[in-house]
């Protein structure tokens, strides 16, 4: 079967979902009202609250949520065959992510632009707000560890990516200086910077760099993890204009270029999908498809982080409430399309089924290498790009996105540690230095706890990360359901996805806990228990909230 079929059917599903389901939800459930005065108008101040044209707003929202994050999940999940991943990405985007993202946006617009965290407290209760913060902290902890492991794995498997991935730091710093200190026009440094980055990929191909197989008792992957966290620690202490902000411009251009040429290559090459529709010979260590599929693919199907973006900044710019449908639903379609690209790369970029099976020999082992090499094969077939260069391009794209996330993530974690220092009166933690060390130390402990001293197999925490992300999405859907119930509107369209995600989360956590315990991975087992307790707490809060809402409804 041609991969073009997957692309057309997938994009068709997204289009149909937007035209039909989002319209139904917008008209009958959210009842979007063009006469409603949005916070952007009521509190218009030209700073945070600015009525913004929906196309402009969609551009802001899409650039914030879309990226390479939905690559990892689908790349891992196709081990069960392409069909389950494809179905979850398409149906999840339409029936879960769409209503989640647009719902968070709408609820925030209806509540003075409050963030989902604040809404959790006002709609569900103070305990739910605390729960929300715990989930956020866990997510930050895991995202840094997971992305460090991902990048380390790519450095080891694709040594040609090392030079460009580190060279970009110098490029970003130069761009930052030119843009923010010398006032140079935006486009030239960005274009030149991206050009230099691509040129460095050619250099990287010529001079691949690898670390020694073992040093100081650590394997190469583990050494890379340490180096990456050292980088993230330093980067998080630098002013954002110097490194983090310039990376925005490089990454943004890179995303559009990378995706553009990838989809073009698929259209030209029309590669054949060689992976099985349902894999009947999964390796022994692969967990059961259900429930693990639904927590392995979070971003690209339904991601809790989107609710933070929708209700954090986007809601303050909505000009007309009717725009919620356009911005909220179409934003999710963008990420779904990226996940679709990942599925195609991981299932159609190989010559034979045997080649594909060579990558998927264990759970979470073959995902990203399969994406890079499969994608590189498609770029070669479609555009004539040398295979090695295409692989480097895709590997570097994923690395740069992940590294930028690490920079932000460590920075935010430091803030949380500093805040804890203030709250609990621990002066040493309020300074930048020690708080950064604590933040990075926690992430390192998790990264090594997952993969051991060799730093291998660390992606086993990916499903835990996905589970926590889904828990955040479930919380948002709970808030939406209670909000709808209090307004005497049908809540089943948010409640059913909430129930589904919560069920899959609890089930997956239980299964994984048994696996971690049986394998002697007690560190991960402990983390699993923490998340499991949080998930059970979510379940209890939901029942309590619903009871109160129903009682209130009955009284009315």
């Amino acid at each position, binding site marked *: 079967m041609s991969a073009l079929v997957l692309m057309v059917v997938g994009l068709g599903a997204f289009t149909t979902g937007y035209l039909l389901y989002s319209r139904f939800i917008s008209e009958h459930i959210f009842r979007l009202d063009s006469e409603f005065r949005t916070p952007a108008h009521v509190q218009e*101040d030209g700073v945070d609250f600015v009525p913004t044209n929906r196309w402009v707003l969609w551009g802001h929202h899409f650039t*914030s949520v879309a990226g390479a994050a939905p690559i990892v999940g689908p790349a891992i999940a196709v081990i069960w065959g392409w069909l389950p991943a494809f179905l979850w990405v398409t149906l999840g985007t339409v029936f879960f992510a769409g209503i989640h993202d647009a719902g968070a946006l709408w609820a925030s617009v209806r509540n003075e632009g409050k963030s989902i965290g604040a809404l959790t407290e006002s709609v569900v209760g103070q305990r739910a707000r605390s729960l929300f913060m715990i989930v*956020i902290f866990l997510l930050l902890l895991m995202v840094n560890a997971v992305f460090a492991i991902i990048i380390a794995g790519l450095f080891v498997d694709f040594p040609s990516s090392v030079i460009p991935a580190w060279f970009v730091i110098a490029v970003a710093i130069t761009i930052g200086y030119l843009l*923010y200190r010398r006032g140079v026009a935006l486009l030239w440094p960005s274009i030149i910077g991206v050009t230099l980055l691509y040129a460095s990929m050619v250099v990287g191909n010529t001079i691949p760099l690898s670390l020694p197989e073992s040093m100081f008792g650590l394997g190469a992957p583990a050494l890379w993890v340490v180096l990456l966290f050292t980088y993230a620690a330093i980067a998080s202490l630098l002013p954002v204009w110097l490194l983090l902000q310039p990376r925005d411009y490089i990454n943004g251009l890179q995303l559009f270029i990378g995706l553009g040429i990838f989809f073009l290559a698929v259209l030209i090459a029309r590669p054949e999908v060689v992976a099985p529709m349902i894999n009947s010979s999964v390796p022994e260590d692969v967990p059961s498809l259900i429930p693990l599929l639904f927590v392995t693919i979070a971003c690209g199907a339904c991601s809790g982080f989107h609710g933070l973006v929708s209700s954090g900044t986007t809601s303050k710019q909505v000009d007309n409430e009717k725009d919620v449908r356009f911005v909220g639903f179409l934003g999710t379609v963008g990420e779904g399309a990226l996940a679709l690209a990942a599925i195609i790369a991981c299932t159609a970029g190989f010559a034979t089924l045997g080649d594909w099976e060579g990558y998927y020999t264990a759970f979470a082992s073959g995902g990203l290498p399969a994406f890079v090499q499969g994608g590189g094969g498609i770029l070669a077939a479609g555009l004539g790009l040398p295979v090695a260069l295409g692989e480097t391009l895709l590997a570097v794209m994923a690395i740069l996105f992940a590294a930028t996330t690490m920079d932000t993530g460590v920075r935010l974690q430091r803030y949380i540690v500093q805040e804890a220092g203030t709250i609990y009166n621990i002066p040493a933690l309020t300074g930048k230095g020690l708080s950064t060390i604590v933040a990075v130390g926690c992430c390192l402990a998790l990264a090594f706890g997952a993969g051991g001293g060799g730093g291998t197999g660390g992606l086993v925490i990916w499903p835990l990360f996905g589970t926590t992300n889904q828990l955040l999405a479930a919380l948002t859907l709970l808030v939406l359901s209670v909000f709808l119930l209090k307004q005497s509107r049908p809540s089943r369209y948010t409640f059913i996805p909430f129930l589904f995600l919560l069920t899959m989360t609890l089930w997956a956590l239980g299964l994984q806990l048994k696996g971690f315990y049986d394998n002697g991975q007690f560190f991960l087992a402990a983390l699993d228990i923490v998340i499991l307790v949080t998930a059970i707490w979510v379940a209890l809060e939901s029942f309590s909230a619903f009871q109160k809402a129903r009682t209130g409804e009955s009284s009315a």
Partner: protein
Amino acid sequence: MPNTGVKGRSSVILIREWERQMSASGCCGRLEGDFLQRRGERCFPERRAVMEAMGPLYRNLRSRYGNEVEIHVVDPRNLFTIFALILRDARAHSLSIWKALRTLFRIPVTGVVVNGRLLTRGRWPEFSELKEVLGDPRTKREEVSGGLA
């Protein structure tokens, strides 16, 4: 992109970065809203300062011109939207493609574009500078309507 509606309606694009991460690193690790400040410290302090400095200019524009002038506040990382807006405005105000391209290649991280032309870069203009360029929108509309009649 929306039509400018009334022919000859002026368009002001205020370019400045929003206090948020738009790095295309995806949603993972992306915290917004309440999380943009911790312990009274903004995560993106320089961006915040630029946003607050633009506030008075925006409010003056709204107060003076209301809906007579189309105002867009666009993040420069939203490059394709900026391109589309500038090209649309250039066409609406009869600017040549070369002048439009000139504007595109000169857009700054912080600046103002009026009717497809770059007015200021690296600073917010005084409101008087904007009024000089925009003129009285009601007069402009009457002139256009008179021309069509």
